């Protein structure tokens, strides 16, 4: 602040005053943003290190289990398993639609399973009619 006050003491737009404004301005802006750059690098380093160590742990764990000859699949493999004859494209489309409707900021939805709610051959319109006709008065 003392530097600012020295400049303030000069009410005239002299060349030294203008030069001081330009140099002070650029130095302060760069200094502030360089500090933020360093902070972000530090933050990125810490979080990436955590992620890398977790990845390494996962790789080593899966490697050891594979060595034992167990037939295991990773979490991605489990979630992408296709059942009941539903293709992966359909699963992806349903997942995207659910995410569009239900996802909120900061929360991620994960579709774990997609199964048919009615047996093959039973028309949903017929089922709706049946429910309508059998509903108690």
């Amino acid at each position: 602040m003392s530097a600012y006050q020295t400049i303030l003491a000069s009410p005239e737009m002299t060349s030294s005053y203008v030069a001081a404004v330009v140099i002070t301005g650029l130095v302060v802006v760069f200094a502030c943003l360089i500090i933020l750059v360093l902070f972000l690098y530090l933050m990125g380093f810490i979080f990436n290190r955590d992620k890398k160590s977790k990845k390494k742990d996962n790789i080593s764990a899966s490697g050891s289990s594979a060595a034992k000859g167990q037939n295991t699949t990773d979490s991605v493999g489990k979630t992408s398993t296709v059942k009941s004859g539903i293709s992966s494209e359909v699963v992806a489309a349903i997942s995207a639609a659910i995410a569009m409707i239900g996802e909120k900021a900061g929360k991620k939805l994960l579709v774990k399973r997609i199964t048919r709610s009615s047996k093959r051959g039973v028309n949903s319109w017929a089922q709706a009619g049946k429910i309508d006709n059998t509903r108690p008065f």
Partner: protein
Amino acid sequence: MIDKFLDTIVDIAQESGIAGFLADGGWKNLVMIGISFIFMYLAIGKGFEPLLLLPISFGMMLTNLPFTEMYHPDLWNISGGASIDFGKVLHDGGLLDILYMGVKLQIYPPLIFLGIGAMTDFAPLIANPKSFLLGAAAQGGIFFTFIGAALLGFTAAEAGSIAIIGGADGPTAIFVSSRLLSGDGATGAIDTGTIALAAYTYMALVPIIQPPIMKALTTKKERSVKMGQLRPVSKTERVIFPIAVTIVIALLVPSAAPLVGMLMLGNLLKESGVCDRLVKTAQNELMNIITIFLGVSVGATTTADKIMNTKFLGVIILGVLAFCLGTACGVLFGKIMYIFSKGKVNPLIGSAGVSAVPMAARVSQKVGQQENPTNYLLMHAMGPNVAGVIGSAVAAGVLLSICV
């Protein structure tokens, strides 16, 4: 009977706005209304920054219609260290005087920043922190324009207000000019409305102003550089970022705290994921209400005597100079990064360091794709673009510290 009728008609005619146009200097109001129509056309017909240019131009029209009494320049014209009598404004002011208090008290710009923060994704900046340097370099336009303003004979306060146009950030320009032009250095020759009008006009012209400079300062090879994919950013990093930026900036440049603090509060609300209602309000209702108030009241300050003088011509010339210099500084720093990164950084993203979110980033993308249609620079340009918002807020803080 007929005499009384004629007298009444004459009285009504003399009190009407039409008589105001025929009074001494009334033609200037007509010219100003014509200018407001041009801005309305640019906003509606051409889509140039319509959300702000339309309320500003309508405010300009309202204030130049004689005898409407919605805005009273004499309540705000102060110089020589005098202060505004807000009590008198409340007692004697019109609707636009009351709304303009939010500008003079520096309330609207930080609230707009709150909304901007709630809409901004800082992930590209967090993923590539070097972008901050481009955001800082582009602020060179502000400080080099200060030299030009000094050469044209403006006072320090006026020069600071004009220079901040180079930040390409409307709320920041209004924030700085409203404070600087209320202090000792104010001569009354230019006003916040003049600065805002120039700033928003040039922001709307970013796609026209920037590309020639970007092309002139870069080679075809540099423009064709494809940049690598950005790393994913975790939620924790996104949450820590606004808190850390606020603390760092507020400690180093306290006068930038209102702008940066509100910007980061909005962003924290968004990234926390637990304040959906507040985020929606900040992004929509609050932002829209303030935009209307800000636009129409700033437009109201553009009275004929403020616009139709040589000082305004100086503001217009220096404003475009500020934009060009900011763009050039960003691109040139991008070239330095291109050299040091051994060709991994496309210098075109440097031009996005002037704020003008997201227009400046889109321009980088467009110019990059002209050289290589498969090149997607948008996300890379968003880093310097949002860094420019923070950078211009810091530059504003510096100008407020030095020039008040």
